[in-house]
């Protein structure tokens, strides 16, 4: 099986962030980055499928040279190689990202599955997987909580969590799947694999290589607002004090 995994770098969701002065982006001076947690689920699933069915797992990432460290983190988890498409974060929206992913898919040939995280925890857009499937004319199964592949039948069975229950879909391969958190627990990168990751190939492409000419964005970020400052919390000494405060101060009871 050949599996592509979209692998995005995001600002560490646990870190405190500041906005830039013009309030259209997050100030990236001295922030820590991580792989998008949903992308880690996607990669973990790809690695498990590879362990079961053999084949190759290829990461696809969009960004500048500086995302290499995140790509190496994915290679250390076990991906075989990676493709990085050179583009600035600011020059991307979901639609362009999807068209780039679709172009990489076509370059790669013989892909069986393209797995995405259901969304990235920075923009929370939740649409790149779907758009890519649309551009490629592939079946899609989003928010997967369980994936099984029957290679002979050329089919994947995907369980999705929907309101009030589970839905099971069968999709013909090749297909696009997006991963939910409950799909699996991503493995730790082992130290020897971190060393090996250094030697794995990261192919670099740009939009010309992929023959993408239309780079106009369809979405513009007008402004970001910080959430209202939290007032200082308080540690109460006893259950009675808590009840008292819930009643009289928070008026929750």
């Amino acid at each position, binding site marked *: 099986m050949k599996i592509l995994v979209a692998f995005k770098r995001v600002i560490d969701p646990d870190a405190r962030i500041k906005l830039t002065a013009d309030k259209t982006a997050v100030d990236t001076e*001295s922030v820590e980055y991580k792989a998008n947690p949903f992308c880690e689920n996607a990669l973990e699933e790809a690695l498990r499928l590879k362990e079961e069915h053999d084949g190759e797992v290829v990461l696809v990432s969009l960004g500048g040279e500086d995302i290499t*460290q995140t790509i*190496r*983190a994915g290679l250390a988890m076990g991906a075989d190689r990676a493709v990085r498409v050179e583009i600035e974060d600011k020059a991307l929206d979901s639609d362009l990202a999807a068209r780039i992913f679709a172009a990489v898919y076509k370059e790669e040939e013989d892909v069986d599955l393209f797995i995405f995280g259901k969304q990235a925890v920075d923009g929370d857009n939740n649409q790149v997987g779907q758009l890519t499937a649309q551009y490629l004319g592939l079946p899609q199964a989003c928010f997967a909580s369980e994936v099984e592949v029957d290679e002979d039948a050329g089919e994947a069975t995907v369980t999705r969590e929907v309101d009030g229950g589970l839905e099971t879909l069968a999709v013909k391969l090749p297909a696009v799947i997006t991963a939910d958190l409950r799909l699996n627990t991503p493995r*730790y990168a082992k*130290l020897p694999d971190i060393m090996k990751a250094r030697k794995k190939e990261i192919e670099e492409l740009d939009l010309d290589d992929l023959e993408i000419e239309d780079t106009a964005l369809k979405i513009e970020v007008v402004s970001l607002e910080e959430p209202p400052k939290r*007032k*200082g919390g308080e540690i109460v000494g006893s259950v009675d004090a808590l009840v008292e405060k819930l009643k009289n101060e928070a008026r929750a009871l």
Partner: protein
Amino acid sequence: MSSREAMLQKDFVVREGGSFLFDRAGEHRIFTPEDLTDEQRHIRNAARQFADRSVLPRIDAIEGKEPGLMRALLEEAGELGLLMLDIPEKYGGLEQDKTTTMLVTETLTRCASFAVSLGAHVGIGSLPLVYFGTVAQKERYLPRLATGEWIAAYALTEPGSGSDALAAKTRAELADDGTHYVLNGSKQWITNAGFADLFVVFAQVAGEHFTAFLVERDTPGFEVGPEEHKHGIKGSSTCPLVLTDVAVPAANVLGEVGKGHRIAFNILNVGRARLGTGSIGAAKYALRLAAGYAAERAQFGRTLDQFGLIRAKLGDMAVRIFAGDALGYRTAGLIDKKYAALEALSPGPDDDDFQNAVEEFTIEASILKVYGSEALDTASDEALQIHGGYGYMAEYAIERVCRDARINRIFEGTNEINRLLLAGTLLKRGMKQRVPLMKAMQAVGKALAGGAAPALDPAGDRLVPEQEQVHRMKCAALYATQQAVSRWMLQIEDQQEVLGALADVLIDVYGADSALARTLQLPADGPAAAFAADATTLFIEGARDRVFTRVKQVLCAALSGDKRDRAFAELALLDHWRPIDVFAVRERVAAAVVAAGGWPL
């Protein structure tokens, strides 16, 4: 590029141990946390993830010594590769440099019981084999130690011999047929003893030749006693050993008969450096707990982090951590660079290279041990104070962190022993002309007698007043040393308080010099530059006060009457108090800590 290759490529000059006292700050490039490679950062993240996801959530069970848990966690760490960093590739390891090891240690110390267990295994437990083992010994044991299949321990201390380790009474007699030794005696407070499989045991062959042996747990006559009840690091295993006619094959002598002290001391040196950086890691954790709590807790209608006295504490902690990181990674870099250089000179498995590299930096390793453990004690104590009464309650992590911190001043050589060692080593090397101590002392003495402080040619135009202060601190250190040496000559060894004062001075000088050098190496317009400059200014001002107080004490002990008065007049040429608004500078440092919710770099 591997971190070792990177280390060789960058222009870190190989310096001798103790040279920080004689070099101008900023003269030679030092290794700093900013020089870590992507791969090292990646390894750190893996270790951090392991600590946060696998270790910390089980902290209560660990501290309650849940049977089998520590061993299982070590095995889990082994699967991840965390136990194989120091082991050669040939024997199933990753053969990484000391910087990487220290980085991992720094990350794990937020759970001290686990970090101590892991450290005893990979450090004092496994390193004697790595550096002193025969090929057969390495082949037999290292691959298992690398994965955590086997756990190692190090047994030096006895009921009657702690600091005075060479006075150990455990005996080893060679059997008549020469095939094995018979060991008898007892050991005490052996970390990991509860579950370790392999013990490095020190004993006196024929009652006088101090020697290390590799002893397997299931050897008949080898008994592990009950767990101690400890003040802190309660989750770690600490037990006595009783050896009754334990037959150890002659092939399990580690190193040479009668040369056990080389193993004991060199391994301790590495352990000290590791303990020092580990302590700084724990101090960062304490700072995070304190900043987090101060942001949540409100009194008098404001969160604690808005009170000046609380912010001052956060600022002070950050200053200590900044200098600790600077001197810690500098020391790791010095050892690695020296080792790489020695290896390049004589490639191949030459065990002496490592010992020489480590021995070279005895002074720095001891400084790092003392500085780190004391910085952690202050930081964790102040972090608890910020928690008020809640910090005294076992529910809050800081209560454990405080208890766990305490051991670091005791083991791997008490801080008193390390102080004596580091000051004594400098003096010995000076007398043997291994470092240019005599020349430097004379130069300072001559300049001051001539009525002027020795001039400094600053390294660039940044932080020039700070450069000047560090220069003057070094001159004062040399001046005090000179007075002490002339007064007591070789008998200075008996003047423990003088040596202790000189040690304090050297610790502050190394800290100030390292903080300054680190800051001068940072890009002037980078995100960390302003914070680093403030932290450096504050550290240097504090260190300056301490250094001059200690120097004056030494002068008063060494001299009296006119001689003393003249010495004080000469010292006044160096003693330059700068009017700095320390509160305002510290407030900026504190603001960075509050904004980041902990250590900001």
